[in-house]
C-alpha cells in the first residue's frame, strides 16, 4: 500500500513539476549551471561576473561593450585610440595594473605590460563568460601581478556541440561576421574553432581642419583541442586602427594608425595528483604610425611630424602547478619561468627637418616566480585564505634587476543570507619594458633605473545580503602606493616620490524578478589623495535584464558625473544602451542593439597645446544582429 502511495504521489509530483513547466525548469537549470559557478575564484578578490546569459541578452559583440559597464572603472580611450581604464577621479591606470586572460593564457604584451592595447576591443562571441576582479593580486591565478584582472573563458565543446553564425551590421556601415563550431568526436577529441572578421566605422570629427578618424579593421582566429588530460589552445588576432588624435600635442592627425598582431599557443597537460604542466608561446607585432599636418603651425620648439614605432615581443612560458587537499586545508602552489624578448625600431621626422632620425634597440627579461596559496575552512561557511608570491626579474642590457614579493591574506564568509569577504595585500606592479629600454636616441624617454610601483597596502571588502528577490552589495577599497611611474617632458619616465592614496566604494541593489531576470542599480565613487579630478568622481549605473516570452530585453543607463580638466568643464554624461532580441525559433534570433542612444555618452578630455578638447568615447549606433545555431 505504501509503495502504491509513493508511486501515485511520485507521478503527481512529476506532473506538477514537469509538464509544461519542463521548459522553465531547463531554463532555470541553464542559468544555475553557468560555467562561472565553476571558474570564479572567490579568494582572488571582489569580482563582477558577466554570465553567458547576460552577454547574450546584452548582444555584446566586443569587450568594450562589457567593460564600459563595470562600476567604478571607466573604460575610456587615449589620444592614440587605445581603450584603457580610468577609475573615478583619476586619469588612466598604469597599463601594467590590468591583466587580461583568455582561459588560462595571459595575453599581456612584454613591451607594454598590458593586453588592452591590442585586445581591449576584441570580439566576444566565442566567450562564454567574463570575470572582472577588482583589487586582485594574481597570486591565486599563478601569473604576473595586477590589480585589475579580467578573465575571459571561451565556450566549450562539452556544452556547445554544434555551431553558430552571427552577423551584425550597423547604421554607419560597420559589419561583423562570427562563426564557431564545437564538436566532441567518438575518438575523444574535443574541438572548438572560431573565426571573426570586422570593420567598425566610427564617427569622424573635424579638428583644426583635420579629420579625426578611429575606424577599425580586425580578424580573430581561435581554436581549442583537447583529449583526456591534454589541451592546446591557439589564436591569432590582427587589427588595424586609425590613429584618432595621434601622437602627443599638437593634435593635427593626418593619417597613421596601429597595425597589430598577436599569435599565441598554449599547451597544458594534467598530470596525476592535481598537477598541471603548461607551456606557452606568444608572438606580438605592434606597429604604430603617427602623421601630422603642421603646415599652419608656428611653434617655438620642434614638434614631431611623422613618428613610427615598431615593437616585436616574444614570450616563452613554462609553468608547473599543483593543488592539494589536506583535511580542512586546500593548497595551491606553482612555479613559472618566462622569457620575454623585446625589439623596437623607431623613426622620427621633426617638423622643419628633412632627415628622419632612426633608433633600434632590444631588451630581455628572465622572470622566475614561485607562489603558494593556502585556504583553511573554519566552518562549512567560512574560510581564511593567505598567499605568497615571490618574483625574480633579471633584465638584460643595463636595466636594474629586482626581487619582489606579494603577500595577501583574507577572510570569506557565506551563508544563505549574508556574505562577506575582505583581503589585504602588499605587493608591487611591474614596469613595462618600453619604459625601461630606450636605445641611443631614447625618443620615448625610457629610464633603465625605474623601480616597480610599490603597492604598500591594498584593502578590499565586499559585504552582501540577499533575501528573496532582494540583494544588496557594498564594495569598498583603499590603496596606498608609492613609486608611481610618471612621464615628465624634461626627464622622461621617472618614479614619483610620495604616497598615493585612493579609496572607492560601490553600493549596489539588485532585484531578481526570477532566476534569470533582474534589475540592478549601482552607485559608485572614488577619490585620490592628494586630490585630482581627471575623470568623473562618481557615477550611477542602472541595468535591467528581462525576458518576455520569446523576447529578451536589456537596458543600461550609465550616468558618469561631471568633471573638469584644465579649465574645461564636462557635464555629466548619460550613456543609454538598449538591446532587444526576438527568438524566431530556438535556433534563430534577430535583434537590435542601440548604443549611446541619447547621444550624450562619456566625453574624454585631451590636453592639447591650446587647451583641453573633448571627444565622445562611444558613438551613437544601432546594430542589427542575426544569430543562427546549427
Amino acid at each position, binding site marked *: 500500500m505504501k509503495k502504491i502511495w509513493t508511486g501515485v504521489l511520485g507521478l503527481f509530483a512529476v506532473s506538477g513539476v514537469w509538464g509544461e513547466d519542463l521548459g522553465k525548469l531547463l531554463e532555470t537549470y541553464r542559468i544555475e549551471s553557468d560555467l562561472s559557478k565553476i571558474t570564479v575564484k572567490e579568494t582572488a578578490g571582489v569580482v563582477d561576473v558577466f554570465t553567458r546569459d547576460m552577454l547574450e541578452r546584452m548582444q555584446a559583440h566586443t569587450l568594450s561593450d562589457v567593460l564600459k559597464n563595470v562600476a567604478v572603472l571607466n573604460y575610456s580611450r587615449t589620444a592614440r585610440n587605445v581603450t584603457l581604464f580610468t577609475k573615478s577621479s583619476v586619469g588612466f591606470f598604469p597599463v601594467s595594473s590590468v591583466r587580461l586572460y583568455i582561459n588560462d593564457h595571459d595575453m599581456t604584451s612584454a613591451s607594454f605590460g598590458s593586453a588592452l592595447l591590442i585586445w581591449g576591443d576584441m570580439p566576444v562571441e566565442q566567450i562564454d563568460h567574463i570575470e572582472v576582479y577588482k583589487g586582485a593580486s594574481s597570486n591565486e591565478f599563478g601569473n604576473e601581478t595586477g590589480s585589475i584582472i579580467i578573465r575571459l573563458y571561451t565556450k566549450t565543446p562539452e556544452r556547445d556541440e*554544434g555551431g553558430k553564425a552571427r552577423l551584425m551590421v550597423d547604421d554607419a556601415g560597420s559589419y561583423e561576421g562570427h562563426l564557431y563550431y564545437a564538436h566532441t568526436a567518438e575518438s575523444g577529441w574535443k574541438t572548438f574553432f572560431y573565426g571573426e572578421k570586422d570593420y567598425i566605422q566610427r564617427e569622424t570629427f573635424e579638428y583644426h581642419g583635420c579629420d579625426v578618424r578611429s575606424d577599425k579593421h580586425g580578424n580573430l582566429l581561435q581554436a581549442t583541442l583537447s583529449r583526456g588530460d591534454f589541451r592546446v589552445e591557439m589564436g591569432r588576432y590582427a587589427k588595424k586602427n586609425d590613429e584618432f588624435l595621434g601622437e602627443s600635442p599638437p593634435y593635427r592627425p593626418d593619417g597613421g594608425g596601429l597595425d597589430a598582431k598577436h599569435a599565441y599557443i598554449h599547451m597544458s597537460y594534467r598530470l596525476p595528483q592535481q598537477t598541471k604542466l603548461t607551456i606557452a608561446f606568444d608572438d606580438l607585432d605592434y606597429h604604430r604610425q603617427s602623421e601630422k599636418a603642421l603646415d599652419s603651425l608656428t611653434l617655438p620648439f620642434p614638434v614631431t611630424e611623422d613618428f613610427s614605432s615598431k615593437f616585436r615581443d616574444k614570450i616563452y612560458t613554462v609553468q608547473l602547478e599543483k593543488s592539494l587537499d589536506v583535511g580542512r586545508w586546500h593548497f595551491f602552489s606553482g612555479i613559472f619561468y618566462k622569457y620575454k624578448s623585446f625589439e623596437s625600431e623607431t623613426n622620427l621626422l621633426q617638423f622643419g627637418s628633412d632627415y628622419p632620425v632612426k633608433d633600434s634597440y632590444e631588451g630581455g627579461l628572465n622572470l622566475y616566480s614561485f607562489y603558494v596559496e593556502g585556504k583553511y575552512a573554519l566552518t562549512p561557511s567560512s574560510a581564511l585564505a593567505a598567499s605568497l608570491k615571490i618574483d625574480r626579474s633579471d633584465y638584460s642590457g643595463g636595466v636594474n634587476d629586482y626581487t619582489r614579493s606579494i603577500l595577501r591574506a583574507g577572510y570569506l564568509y557565506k551563508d544563505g543570507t549574508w*556574505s562577506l569577504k575582505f583581503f589585504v595585500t602588499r605587493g608591487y606592479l611591474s614596469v613595462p619594458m618600453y619604459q625601461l629600454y630606450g636605445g641611443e636616441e631614447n625618443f620615448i624617454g625610457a629610464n633603465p633605473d625605474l623601480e616597480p610601483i610599490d603597492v604598500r597596502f591594498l584593502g578590499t571588502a565586499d559585504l552582501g545580503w540577499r533575501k528573496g528577490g532582494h540583494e544588496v552589495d557594498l564594495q569598498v577599497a583603499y590603496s596606498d602606493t608609492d613609486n608611481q611611474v610618471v612621464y615628465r617632458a624634461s626627464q622622461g619616465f621617472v618614479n614619483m616620490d610620495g604616497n598615493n592614496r585612493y579609496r572607492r566604494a560601490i553600493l549596489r541593489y539588485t532585484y531578481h524578478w526570477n532566476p534569470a531576470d533582474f534589475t540592478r542599480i549601482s552607485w559608485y565613487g572614488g577619490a585620490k589623495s592628494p586630490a585630482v579630478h581627471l575623470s568623473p568622481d562618481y557615477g550611477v549605473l542602472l541595468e535591467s535584464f528581462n525576458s518576455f516570452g520569446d523576447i529578451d530585453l536589456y537596458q543600461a543607463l550609465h550616468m558618469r558625473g561631471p568633471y573638469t580638466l584644465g579649465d574645461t568643464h564636462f557635464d555629466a554624461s548619460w550613456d543609454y544602451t538598449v538591446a532587444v532580441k526576438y527568438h524566431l525559433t530556438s535556433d534563430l534570433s534577430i535583434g537590435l542593439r542601440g548604443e549611446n542612444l541619447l547621444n550624450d555618452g562619456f566625453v574624454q578630455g585631451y590636453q592639447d597645446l591650446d587647451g583641453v578638447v573633448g571627444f565622445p568615447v562611444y558613438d551613437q549606433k544601432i546594430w542589427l544582429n542575426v544569430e543562427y545555431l546549427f
Partner: protein
Amino acid sequence: MRLLWVVLLPILLLGATDRAEKQIYESLITLIYPQREVVKVWSDDENRRAFLAEMGPRVRLVERPQMADLVVLRHTENLQIDRPIIAERYGILKRYRERAVVGFYWKKGRPHLIFLESALRHFNIRLSDELRAYVVKRP
C-alpha cells in the same frame, strides 16, 4: 567527514546552486521507478557520483553498474547491461538508443532533455500527455 568538507566548502563559497538540476534528476528517477522507495544508481562520472550522493535517501549510489536499477552515463560506450540509462552526452544517447530512456545533455549552449520512444517501450515506462511532446523516435 572529510568528504563532507570537500563537497560543502566549494558549494558554499562558490555560491553554486544546483536546485533545478536536483529537481530534474528527482523527477527522472520518479518517472522511471515510480513505485521504488530506494533506487540504486550508478554513474561513470566522478562529479555526477558526488551529485547523486547528495540527493537524499531515495537514491543509493552503488559501486558497479550490475548492482544498479538505473545507470547514468557520460563516458562509457560499451556497457552491456539491460537497465534504463540516462545519457548525459549526445554521442552516448545515440550509442544506447535501445536502452537510453532519457537524453539529458548540452548542445548548442543549452540543456536538452528528450525521451527515446523505443527505450520507453522496452522498459514499459509511461509518460503524461504533457511530456509526450519531449518523446522522439531517434536522437
